[in-house]
């Protein structure tokens, strides 16, 4: 099964109609929220990919988290595409990433900060989105990103919670 098809099926499992139905009627302000979430998801996807290449996070974990962020991003892209925004811009590289790739601790700190920021962004979205059909699928991604933080803390040997 292709990743895109799997993404859509998973999204559909979260809420009737999944992202596609939900986003079809998303108001403009909701689009800005979705775009912000997508930028953060893509930033984390790039970070975990770079961490895997540089060996600053356990290889299997880095790849797994990268792939999950990619799934999140695809879900958000699908929501945006169904709202008529088929090609959201390529996010700018994060200038802090190079410094974070110097070592395991630096990267872990960077990833934790970004995952925390992402979870807070989803919480803001849950409070502020006008299209309530987006809330369940986005909540399922938010809970996943909260789990990523636990996984990164475990890799750092820090308390899980």
């Amino acid at each position: 099964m292709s990743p895109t098809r799997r993404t859509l099926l998973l999204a559909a499992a979260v809420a009737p109609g999944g992202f596609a139905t939900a986003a079809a009627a998303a108001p403009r302000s909701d689009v800005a929220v979705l775009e912000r979430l997508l930028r953060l998801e893509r930033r984390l996807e790039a970070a975990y990919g770079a961490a895997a290449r540089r060996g600053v996070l356990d290889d299997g974990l880095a790849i797994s988290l990268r792939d999950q962020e990619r799934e999140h991003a695809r879900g958000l892209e699908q929501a945006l595409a169904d709202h008529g925004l088929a090609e959201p811009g390529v996010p700018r590289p994060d200038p802090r990433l190079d410094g974070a790739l110097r070592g395991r601790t630096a990267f872990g700190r960077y990833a934790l900060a970004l995952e925390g920021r992402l979870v807070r962004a989803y919480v803001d979205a849950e409070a502020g989105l006008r299209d309530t059909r987006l809330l369940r699928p986005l909540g399922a991604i938010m809970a996943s990103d909260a789990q990523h933080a636990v996984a990164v803390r475990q890799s750092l040997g820090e308390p899980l919670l």
Partner: protein
Amino acid sequence: MHPVPGPITRRGAVGGAAVLLASCGSDDPRPPTGARAGSGAGLLNSLLALEHTAVAAYGAGARLLRGQALRYARQIEERERGHVRRLEQLIRGLGGTAARSRTPDEYARSFPRLRNGDDALRFAEDLEERLVRAYLQALPKLPEPELRRAAAEICADEGAHLAALHVMRGRPAAPQPFVTGTL
């Protein structure tokens, strides 16, 4: 009616949690909330009943746990108590009356029989899955942004608890990209 205690299996844990959580929503007397219809107080009270159950479950499971697992179970129990306090505050703010917990004995009678630490952790996982599901289902129904914000923050917490329980059971913390919980 309470389930007959027996050895815990995956199905047993899920079934036990299902019976238990269903009872939280239907058998418990609905408190006289006093809040206006559609305020979200009733929905928050349903979530509160689940949180009370989770607190009781961690309390019951703690006697079977040791070391790191016990420390995390205690920590999660305390975080669930924090969720209880937050939900109670929100319900009162809406003019409602918060659902009260049952006694530990009443909860214990409806739990599956927990024979060892792994049983306790599996039961806790099932409860956390159900909590995640309940919050996800509640989010679109809560009418006010600040109620949704609180529910979302707690839902993220429950996702993290689930990840910690996965680790305690020797599994990856974050095994899937969409954490939907179970029915």
